[in-house]
């Protein structure tokens, strides 16, 4: 178990760098845009009567005074004007000067200000992404048409969570999901992946011999074990991926109690321990894998569903608690997984490797919420459309 050398070395005697986030004041309409951006959608308001597309967010159509609705839009644009901001009174941007931004004409119609990639020049065609900024709000980022995101672009790095050279804790390496996540993070260039293993489990063969992977005892049902594990990491901790879950059929009291201990109280033990560590990092993130049974219960797995629902609730609160510190809290929704926990569930099931890829995609794409697999996508679509119907039809 050798560790990769970290390129970044911090002098322990140096004064800690304080981290700020962009100003957070937004209108209610802008928050509606951010909520959709968090789901990875590229939306603008469109009039339900005259179809005019409008931006910045308004409360009524400026063309005919009709009602507005959020609609997915084409993402092309042209850069009309640019500037490099070198002076600001804002603490967050002051730490990131100089900053390039510009005026873009969206193919969808409106003119918008946007953050710019290094390769986009005036007159050039752009692809625009709706990202979530460090303060948790939607922001437009324009890059040259066809350009792939550049992880060495310091502006882009503010909107995503780079995996390369980072130290990452994966909380449970026992199951297929945990092991696939470790392998994916390792392949993506993580400097160090610390993998939790609750006693009395033995180190899994799948993790043997992986460079930069270290297995440590970690039991989320034990407060002391959690704090010992975090202390043992000793250095900077950039990312936590919580893979711990407890899946059983039925509603046995013993199973319910253990599910709550792992999934609900365990999450609290984990977040309360790791939050201060993540807050000190330039791109701290907490990723959690949540069953879409958290949205509406699966009557075949009532105890599991209840624990997942409570878990999702705590996770959402944790996201808001972390807003002021720039730590991103990301949710990966999955349906039934093709693993030992779902032996009795018929296909379609999502492969652990798909979930692992989803974890890396969410981090490096800056996605606050991502649905992995057809079942999770379908569940989210139905729940977003009509929650009352979804709860009924899910268990018919």
């Amino acid at each position, binding site marked *: 178990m050798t560790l990769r050398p970290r390129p970044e070395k911090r002098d322990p005697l140096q004064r800690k760098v304080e981290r700020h986030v962009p*100003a957070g004041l937004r*209108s209610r309409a802008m928050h509606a845009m951010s909520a959709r951006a968090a789901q990875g959608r590229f939306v603008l308001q469109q009039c339900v009567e005259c179809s005019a597309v409008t931006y910045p967010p308004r409360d009524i159509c400026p063309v005919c005074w009709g009602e507005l609705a959020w609609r997915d839009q084409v993402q092309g644009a042209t850069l009309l*004007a640019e500037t490099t901001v070198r002076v600001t009174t*804002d603490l967050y941007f002051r730490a990131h000067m100089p900053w*390039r931004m510009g005026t873009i004409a969206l193919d969808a119609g409106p003119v918008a200000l946007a953050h710019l990639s290094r390769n986009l020049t005036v007159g050039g065609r752009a692809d625009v992404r709706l990202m979530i900024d460090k303060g948790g709000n939607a922001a437009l980022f324009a890059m040259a048409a066809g350009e792939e995101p550049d992880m060495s672009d310091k502006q882009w790095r503010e909107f995503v969570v780079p995996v390369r050279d980072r130290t990452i804790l994966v909380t449970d390496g026992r199951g297929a999901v945990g092991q696939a996540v470790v392998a994916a993070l390792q392949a993506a260039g993580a400097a160090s992946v610390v993998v939790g293993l609750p006693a009395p489990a033995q180190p899994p063969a799948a993790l043997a011999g992986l460079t930069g992977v270290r297995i440590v005892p970690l039991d989320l049902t034990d407060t002391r074990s959690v704090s010992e594990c975090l202390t043992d990491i000793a250095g900077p901790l950039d990312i936590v991926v919580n893979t711990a879950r407890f899946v059983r059929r039925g509603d046995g009291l013993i199973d319910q109690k253990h599910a709550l201990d792992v999934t609900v109280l365990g999450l609290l033990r984990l977040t309360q321990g790791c939050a201060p560590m993540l807050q000190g990092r330039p791109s701290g993130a907490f990723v959690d894998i949540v069953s879409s049974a958290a949205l509406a219960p699966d009557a075949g797995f009532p105890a599991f569903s209840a624990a997942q629902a409570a878990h999702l609730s705590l996770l959402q609160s944790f996201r808001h608690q972390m807003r002021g510190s720039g730590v991103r809290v990301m949710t990966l929704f999955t349906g039934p997984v093709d693993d030992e926990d779902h032996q009795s569930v018929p296909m379609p099931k999502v492969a652990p490797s798909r979930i692992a890829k989803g974890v890396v995609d969410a981090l490096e794409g800056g996605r606050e919420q991502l649905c992995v697999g057809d079942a999770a996508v379908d569940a989210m679509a139905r729940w977003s459309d009509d929650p009352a119907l979804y709860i009924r039809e899910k268990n018919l």
Partner: protein
Amino acid sequence: MRGRLRYDDVVLCAPVTVPYERYSSQSAHWWAGRALRVLADVTGLGPRDFDGFCFSSFSAGPDTAVGMVQHLGLSPRWLDHIPTGGASGVMAMRRAARAVQCGDAQIVACVAADTNHLDSFRQTVAGFSRFSQDAVYPYGSGGPNATFALITDHYMRTFGIGREAFGKLCVAQRDNARSNPLALQRGVLTLDAYLNARPISDPVHLYDCVMPCAGADAYIVTTPEVAQRLGLRMVRILSTIERHNAHPQDKVQWRGGWTMDVDDLWAMAGVGPQDVDVLQVYDDYPVIVAMQIDNLGFCPPGEVADFIRRTDFTITGDLPLNTNGGQLSAGQAGAAGGFQNVTEGMRQILRQPLGDQVPDARIAAISGFGLVNYDRGICTAAAVLEAVA
């Protein structure tokens, strides 16, 4: 459409400026009160004599003109609050003039006052408007420097105008400021220093930016009879225009609302740009000065770069521009920055300048530009004034 009524039987008097300060521990209320006190000293009028009050400010919150009348002991029968910043001087004038002309008020005090505390600028910029909060400030938080950098970048590309043209305007205004004892920046500014200044938000550099400060400007609008009784010299309004949210289809602002109404401005005035002795335009950034020179018809459309090259804008030049130094040199005292074009224009044609006098000045053109709600200035206004012989 009905024809417009001329501004008969109404005059402007008593332009006053409370000396600007870079930072002030006083409130906007204090600055407004000081402006009234200076008006009182000049006119001999007291709180009970003003039956009209028009107020403009960014920093009087939570108060508006309403809170201000009680704070300042006024009891007007006509009240207006103008939140249009750089366009507020001309807008206050046209509203008050109609009120006086129609007899709704007899003596209106038009006052713009703003303070500037140590952290005022950041707070004003961060919470300026809803669109700004949602869609401008989060993009680098460069404030107006960044917004006008984008407008300047586009303007330079569109009209082939270079930094040296903007530099000539800034240098001329600084030359004008040198005789104004109230200007905050009176040191020599050379074109070289302008061109080599540090970049703030490309292509905007240090001397393209105004210096935010505290201050107040005011004047009164009344009847010729009252002015004569008080022994005040008078200015008459030849014409005015005003427009908001013009040309929303322009993807980047390259012209202002003046273009919609400029023919009306000169037709009503009965004079043309060639008759103007002093030009006082809003100058938060030189690109807006250039835009006003073009849009108000001082040069053929699109030829402002050439016009700047062959025109002398100093006090003794062909077209004396912002003769107190403008905001670029005198300082930007918030909403008072939208009043100083009016007070300075009045002073020059009344022969009561703060600094050097423009020889034989009789006609002043005033132009205002205000409120970058999102990506462009929304409010534009202009007036042509003439001294009453």
